[in-house]
């Protein structure tokens, strides 16, 4: 797929999500290729946006994972996070 582009600041992730009755996608958990699964505690904001840091564009979910805020992007059909945020 043409939107699948690697970059230093981009981490593709696996996502477990709810597909709600009204057609929304609500990500619940995410996991990098070899990392542990992280539960998403809260989604603070959802909007279409570019990722200037990682390179790409899609639906951006601003997520709270423990103490951290993560920018999770759904650039169909892939999910990615901005790498610095994952550490």
């Amino acid at each position: 797929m043409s939107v699948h582009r690697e970059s230093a600041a981009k981490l593709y992730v696996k996502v477990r999500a709810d597909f709600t009755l009204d057609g929304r996608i609500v990500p619940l958990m995410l996991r990098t290729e070899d990392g542990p699964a992280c539960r998403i505690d809260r989604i603070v904001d959802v909007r279409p946006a570019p990722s200037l840091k990682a390179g790409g564009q899609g639906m951006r979910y601003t997520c709270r994972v423990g103490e951290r805020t993560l920018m999770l992007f759904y650039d169909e059909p892939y999910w990615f996070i901005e790498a610095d945020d994952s550490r």
Partner: protein
Amino acid sequence: MDRIILHCDANSFYASVECLYNPAIRHRPVAVSGDAQARHGIILAKNEIAKRYGVKTGEAIWQARQKCPELLCVPADFSLYVRFSRKMRRIFEQYSDRVESFGLDEVWIDLSQPGLCWDEGVRMAHALRRRVREELGITISVGVSFNKVFAKLGSDMKKPDAVTAIAPDRFRELVWPLPAGDLLFVGPSTRRKLAAINITTIGDLARFDPALLQSRLGKNGLTLSAFANGEDRSPVMPSDQRMAIQSIGNSTTPPHDLTCEEDARCLYTLLAESVAARLRAEGLRARCVSISARTAQLSTASCQCMLKEPTNLTDEIAQAALGLFAGRFGGHFPYRSVGLSCSHLSPDNAPIQLDFTGNEEKRMRLEQLERSIDGLRRRYGHQIVQRGVVLCDRDFAQINPVENHTIHPVPFYAG
């Protein structure tokens, strides 16, 4: 009531999308180019930094590198650009149902509605510009005016990420001082003709006697005169209305130059096959066949002929094309690229005059055969069935003009 029309032009569209997806190249001079190995090595788009070096769209990669040695050329990824174009369009369609695309990166939007004032239209243009930047990460320039021609002119005046408004009461001061060549439809040839009668600005064109202009430029003269005076009334086509197709064509730059009649027969048959398949897919037949050929020096010539009966058969189109080629271009090899296009279209369910010789019956059987081949190719790929003539050159046999990238020219007027 004056209309409120926007023209939105995505700035350096292909290059902007590439830079968005690859942050590492964002601060370098970048150009999106065709494949140099396949001899399509021209610049298709460049970013702002490359523009500052004087890199121009349409020039060869080696020419661009002479101006900017560190120019980074990335291959075009059309599926990504089409996807972005659709995303942009989805935003525009939230503002009006009259959104008309002009290529992948330009649209007109008619915002006019009762009670919407001019200032409100300009505010909406700014809102739209901001949304594209914030949601998609690329920028657009927007022209706001009371007709399509001036709106397009406006979007070229200030770039990138800007709005230019040309109001009905201000177009004389804003538009008339601009060079005549900036107006839609004024290409290099028309510009030369206008210069010969001392018309250099759009204002000169507007003030010139239309009848005299018509005697010099034909019907186009009247159109240009009306455009310059702000009298373009062409509508913005609604989103769901398909424009009537006026011609179907294909061209190709093969992996090596055409050097003999055999090469020409092979390539024109390939192109005729693709054009005929597209005619059948659209339910059309054509009466006029035009061909073009481009020399290694990049000068292009074309010619056309009318057929006795409308057709969508490969052989009839190929024969007409080869007849034209032999008459006009034969013996002047080599050629770098060739094109074929069919026009004067009519629906394929129009009544046919049968004859006693059985010729029409034979044509109907041939059409059935070609439709079966279309079906096979849809299911198993283009190379599953090939004509013997195209196998004479291994490089040419790999060309698939139907699926290869083609950007369709869009007629300005709805046909």
